[in-house]
């Protein structure tokens, strides 16, 4: 196994594991903010208890995000030293800015949310909830800025083999930043909200804390249903952007081997990269052209336009992109059914729907990971699109054996904290939204 492959595998594993947590934080921090705002407005203590319940879960999710996030910042120096030397002038600033503007904010005020309920006024507490929400989203923005610059680099010039910053705002607000930010945030809201809905569903099914469960269900359903519908629009806008700025990536997403006017949307198929064919393809004629060009006869570039050594792999981006879309549509359905039941006031008793929610929890996580896989694998063979090849981005002095060693340790440690974290979150959930967590825990166990 060569060093490039191992370095990619390690980054994929560590980033993929990390990416379980921040989306959850985005959604949960929004719900905490909603609950605190309702509490301030109504003075109804039920909201406060639900918020405290979510904060306990948020606290655990957050530390897991922090601990696994450090690894990624290190990785740019550890495994991707050539990358850091080549594009550090542009790429480093957003990472530093994330720390200065967002991460401090999030960490410091999360400390107040978790430990400071009795030490600050309700207004200050709500302000802290807002700042955690704001910090989490701002943090996401800087990370998406950095990642989007790898997809659609802008605002720089090449000088002596290195990227040199020319225009900070052009680099930060490059052609894919805004749409990818919105898409990622909505993915986070969907994730956090579905987790909260499943928790509420579980409480309702067990007949515990029904009043609080109903409040939690209402708020999270509203966020979930709205985010799922909006995601359809943002996903569409994103695919239009990819077609314009990274046409070979869209060709891989759709396994479009030849350029076509009036290109079809492939609903199902098994792309065969060797023979440049899609087996068992089910296609909707002209649909792709209509979607990305708003013109059924619009021309969509196929993979044949690009030299073989500059084409992304096809199977993985195709499969992950299509599954992600499938899940996205499923979320709209889940949201719509929920809203329908809610308007008929049947939701708390709809046991079958509540059970579906429990089983649906992994889906938004899968959708997030699949979207991320399609975006990053679809960018290959480039680390920075048309600027730096992934194979030229790795550290020259780190032997494959060292990476294998760290990869094994990462796997073991992440398995340990993943399993422990999951069981701890479950235990925290099972305690329920009582007012005294420690004692409620003993009673409920």
């Amino acid at each position, binding site marked *: 196994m060569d060093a490039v492959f191992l370095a990619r595998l390690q980054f994929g594993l560590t980033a993929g594991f990390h990416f379980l947590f921040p989306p959850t934080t985005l959604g949960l921090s929004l719900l905490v903010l909603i609950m605190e705002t309702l509490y301030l407005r109504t003075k109804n203590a039920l909201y406060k208890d639900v918020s405290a319940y979510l904060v306990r879960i948020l606290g655990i999710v957050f530390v897991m995000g922090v601990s696994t996030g450090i690894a990624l910042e290190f990785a740019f120096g550890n495994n991707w030293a050539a990358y*850091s*030397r080549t594009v550090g002038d542009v790429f480093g600033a957003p990472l530093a800015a994330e720390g200065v503007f967002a991460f401090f904010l999030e960490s410091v005020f999360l400390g107040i949310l*978790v430990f400071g309920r009795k*030490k600050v006024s309700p207004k200050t507490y709500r302000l802290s909830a807002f700042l955690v929400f704001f910090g989490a989203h701002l943090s996401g923005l800087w990370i998406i800025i950095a990642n989007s610059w790898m997809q659609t680099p802008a605002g720089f010039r090449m000088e002596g083999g290195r990227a040199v910053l020319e225009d*900070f705002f052009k680099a930060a607000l490059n052609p894919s930043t805004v749409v990818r930010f919105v898409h990622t945030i909505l993915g986070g809201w969907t994730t956090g909200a579905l987790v909260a809905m499943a928790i509420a569903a579980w409480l309702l099914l067990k007949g515990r804390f029904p009043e609080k469960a109903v409040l939690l269900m209402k708020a999270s359903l509203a966020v979930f249903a709205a985010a799922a519908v909006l995601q359809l629009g943002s996903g569409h806008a994103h695919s239009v952007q990819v077609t314009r700025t990274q046409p070979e990536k869209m060709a891989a997403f759709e396994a479009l081997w030849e350029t076509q006017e009036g290109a079809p949307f492939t609903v199902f198929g098994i792309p065969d990269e060797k023979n440049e064919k899609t087996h068992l393809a089910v296609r909707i004629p002209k649909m792709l052209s209509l979607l990305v060009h708003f013109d059924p006869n619009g021309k969509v570039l196929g993979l044949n336009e690009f030299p073989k050594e500059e084409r992304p792999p096809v199977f993985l981006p195709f499969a992950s992109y299509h599954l992600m879309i499938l899940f996205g549509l499923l979320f709209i359905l889940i949201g719509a059914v929920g809203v329908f039941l809610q308007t008929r006031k049947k939701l708390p008793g709809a046991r079958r729907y509540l059970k579906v929610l429990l089983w649906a929890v992994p889906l938004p996580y899968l959708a997030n990971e699949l979207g991320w896989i399609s975006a990053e694998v679809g960018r290959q063979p480039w680390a920075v699109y048309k600027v730096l090849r992934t194979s030229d981005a790795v550290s020259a002095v780190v032997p494959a054996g060292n990476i294998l060693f760290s990869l094994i340790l990462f796997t073991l440690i992440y398995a340990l904290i993943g399993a422990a974290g999951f069981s701890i979150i479950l235990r925290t959930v099972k305690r329920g939204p009582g007012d005294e967590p*420690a004692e409620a825990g003993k009673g409920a166990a």
Partner: protein
Amino acid sequence: METWDILRNVWFLLVGVLLAGYSVLDGFDLGVGALFPFLTKSEDEKRTLIRAIGPVWDGNEVWLLTGGGALFAAFPPAYATVFSGFYLALMLVLFALILRAVSLEFRTHDPKRKGLWEATFVGGSFLPALLFGVALGNVVVGIPLDTRTEYAGNFFTLLRPLPLLFGVLGLCAFLLHGGAYAALKTEGALQARARKAIKPLVAATAMAFLLSFIAVGIYLPGGMKRLPAWIFALIVWVSLGSLMRPGKKANDKRTFLLSSLTFLGLWGVVGAVHYPNLVRATDPALSLTIANASSSALTLKVMLIIALVGMPLVVGYTVFAYRVFKGKVGPDDAAY
């Protein structure tokens, strides 16, 4: 001096300030972690000590992430050389930090495996407290670099006597700082134990500092010709000396401020000796300096604006948070 030169110097200073900020803030919770088994005897005491750092350690660790981010953005080649060159050593630090980060939350919520999470907390605090100094010692003393300015040594090159001595000095200073914080935030037997630990830790820190200072003087005589190095060394000696002679009444705030000042003095000495190097190479012609390893003037300027806007806010609300959580803690204070 042209603008670019000024910016490079400013960023040398600012990266130093961020790392010094990290030492002073996260330093005490690393120290508390490493001293944990020696300071606590009962579950109540353990919970008290955890409670003392619980609300703040997370924000403290952001100083490391931001310092690392600033080093990456301002001096990418130095970041690349050190992080890829010290691969295995930094992986150890990383694994320690990852396990440590989850350990406190997990210990509280996972009563069946308290022992495991306590061990990862203690080990995860001890290892970085030792290895940060070793890593710093290496870039200050000098490491073998090839003509591409890539690291040309191996893992064991990092374990030379002088960097190890830096590691011991760093560890002593972290322990001292942790002891001072524990004394400040607790009461009773726990506080008494923390107070008792101060004097031996001051003596150990002073000894390690004296040896390091002499060794640096022998290895890097040029650095010792610089007046600021002596001024900062004097600050370290005055702080340590004052710690050895506490007033009649125990004053934990004074102890904590003096141990913080010790850290600032130590960073000052390092900065004065090391400037303008970022990574000293065994062959001085290959050293990475602020002149040959910095980002462009525009990047440094953008970052300076970010820092000037952002850091006052950070300092402001960090002070606010410490005031919210000021005073002594007990085992069952609020939350969790």
